[in-house]
């Protein structure tokens, strides 16, 4: 039960051959078909979509699996970028190692934020994270991203307005870096799925069902709640490091406080009950503004859409689009076949 081989075997058993083929096709599509069809501008955007999907993945896990609402994922994302940049100006590490350290440090910070919140119920935990997001953003606008200087903050007047992390030798071009990010995203998605299907996932499900029962069953509630925070923050940290190496680098003003709330909105809209919701959320967050620009519409329509979507999700479709769309398609199919299909209605929110 505790052996790694056992967990892996259990995991492999849950993947059907049909699903495996579909996943491989999807991977090939994302890795090869998309770059061949899109120009530089859309590759830059798609790279951002992939990076943000990793961050959304962590948040979706935290909300959907562990039932903990956090509104500070966006700030942890920025902190991940900050850590990766600060390390890079101290010692030049290969990017994967840098990402790993950034992820772990961010995970520790995330756990520290989550720690005192263990005693608090859903609403107050969310408020603590919201305050942490606001306060964290404020501190970051003062210390800015490291840009080559010394000292704690790594700030140098001559360093320039944005900070850039160097890419690995084999991933210098836009397309190559995109593929690099996709590969890392795939690893993170596998990691998330593995956790969800493993012991942690079962513990989270038990906690969500009833904390008292879970406690009686011997589940270490504190540990698994913190573990959820750690994983979500780890995802944010990895995403942050990748963002710091993307085209243009990072600058503190791309992390305004409203972004934290919008991120929560799109993650809920995308759906927190399965990992695909993260991709939908990232597409919403990064692609919709660009499409609005393409069509000559004000980007504020996107903001309004997120707000409306959030309210709609809470009202009618707590599972979000990735949960609702298959249900809708299924219903459509059923209507087409003129056979009534029973659809399980989820009316309670994830937390």
């Amino acid at each position: 039960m505790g052996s790694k081989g056992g967990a892996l075997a259990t995991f492999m058993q849950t993947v059907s051959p049909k699903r495996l083929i579909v996943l491989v096709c999807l991977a090939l599509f994302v890795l090869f078909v998309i770059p061949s069809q899109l120009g530089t501008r859309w590759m830059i955007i798609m790279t951002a979509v992939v990076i943000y999907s990793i961050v959304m993945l962590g948040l979706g896990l935290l909300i959907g699996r562990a039932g903990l609402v956090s509104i500070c994922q966006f700030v942890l994302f920025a902190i991940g970028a900050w850590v990766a940049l600060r390390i890079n100006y101290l010692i030049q590490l290969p990017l994967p190692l840098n990402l790993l350290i950034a992820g772990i440090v961010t995970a520790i910070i995330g756990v520290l934020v989550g720690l005192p919140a263990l005693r608090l119920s859903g609403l107050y935990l969310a408020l603590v994270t919201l305050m942490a997001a606001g306060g964290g953003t404020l501190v970051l606008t003062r210390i800015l991203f490291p840009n080559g200087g010394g000292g704690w903050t790594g700030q140098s007047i001559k360093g320039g307005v944005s900070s850039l992390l160097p890419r690995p030798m084999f991933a210098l071009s836009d397309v190559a870096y995109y593929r690099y990010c996709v590969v890392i995203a795939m690893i993170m998605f596998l990691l998330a799925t593995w956790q969800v299907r493993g012991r942690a996932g079962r513990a989270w499900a038990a906690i969500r069902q009833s904390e008292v029962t879970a406690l009686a069953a011997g589940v270490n509630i504190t540990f698994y709640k913190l573990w959820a925070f750690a994983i979500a923050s780890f995802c944010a940290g990895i995403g942050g490091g990748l963002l710091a190496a993307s085209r243009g680098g990072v600058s503190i003003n791309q992390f305004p406080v409203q972004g934290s709330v919008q991120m929560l909105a799109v993650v809920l809209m995308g759906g927190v009950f399965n990992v695909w919701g993260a991709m939908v959320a990232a597409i919403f967050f990064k692609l919709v503004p660009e499409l609005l620009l393409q069509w000559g519409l004000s980007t504020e329509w996107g903001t309004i859409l997120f707000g409306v979507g959030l309210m709609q999700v809470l009202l009618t479709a707590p599972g979000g689009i990735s949960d609702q769309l298959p249900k809708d398609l299924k219903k459509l199919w059923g209507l087409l076949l003129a056979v009534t299909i029973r659809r399980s209605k989820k009316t309670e929110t994830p937390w």
Partner: protein
Amino acid sequence: MTKTSRLSGSRRIGSLLALVAVASLGIAACGSSSSSSSDTAAPAVADTTAPVADAATGANLQAPGQCGMGTGTPATGEPIKLGGLATNVPGIDFTWITTMTGAYFKCVNDNGGINGRPIEYTAVDEQLDPTQIASIATKLIEEDKVLGLVGNTSIIDCSVNGAYYAEKGFYPIIAGVDQACFTSANFSAVNMGPYYSSLGGAQAALRAGAKGTMVIVSPNLPGYDLIDTGVTDFAKANGLKAIDVLEDVPFADPASLAQRLVKQAGPGGAVVLDFTGPVVLPLLQAIEQQGLIDSVIWASSTPPNDPSVSKELSAKWNGKFLVNAEMNVLDSGLPDQNHMEVIRAKYAPDLPSAAFTQFGYLAGRIATDALMSIKGDLTQESVNAAFKGIKNWKTDMFCKPWYYSSGAAGNVSNNSDITVAPKDGVWVKVEDCFDIAALPNNPLDAIRANEIANGLNVG
């Protein structure tokens, strides 16, 4: 539970695949459709045999008070594509400049265009996100296939996209903000940017008798710590103590900020402000309300040079707010200034008549002269060569003629200007054209030497 989730799982994947496929097909369709529509412009392949623009004379080709050819008939040929971008975030709105540039081009189009061809100007807002601005630049240059960039005004564009523009051979005519705009041969600004403009304000404050301490206060945004070194270096070089304050914009508590600045400057000291008009107005009103107008010498960089600011200032402020004006006064009555008013009123009536409007006007007018001077095909190459080759370009808005390329470490072609102060609700000139101070850390000495040696701004 597992059974249903496995079934719905594959359906989920299927539906998601459909979503992704549709989305990427949609993107590909959008991407390819815009590129096919812009194939009308000549390919930007380097053709050294093609007659490249001879803008070495730099003569103003447009008659005073006229846009373009001045024919009065709308242009109907193949559009000439130009692009621009501007920062637009709470507390910083530079879209006035690109809007005015667009208005100028509309006037040109209504007057015969460039040899009968209208200009199609695309201006995009950016929100200080480096990835976004990089993608905007690639959209304009690679997707929309613009021939040149005019009117770019952004805090991060020069830093983030500088290398990309150089690689693509672009020489944008901009309104610079970030110091990277003034330390690269690939940009030339119609203004002098907050570094030089706040330095000009500091010079005016010193002449007005500032003693003891000089405080420079600017937005807490990327790059402003470097921008503020103009004033701090100048203060120290003149025996004053220097304090640099970075404040979040818009102000959270202007009355407290006013009190704090006065305390830091001390009696007889000077405070140089570096904020846009709408942002600084609450501070000015708080200074008056708190009775602090006479406590220190108040100076500023250009942006408050805007009637909507002066008309809110009571007579107590008369002569007490020394604003460095990068261009001539807005009521000079001279031809280009009047022309700007005409165009603004007709094509962009929502824009105030302000310093930023002057920037946009000049960027549009300079670019039009450059385009008109090209004697061959209009390509990315020929247009940018025309931009780069401009010199001795005259206007009544500048103290000296303008040119693109200084040949030194960066272009600061507008490097002498005037000081204005409020008087009964309007801005009046209080100091005539003076040179912005050359300091060890800025290249103005080298630039001015080149100006004389190469005859860049005579006449």
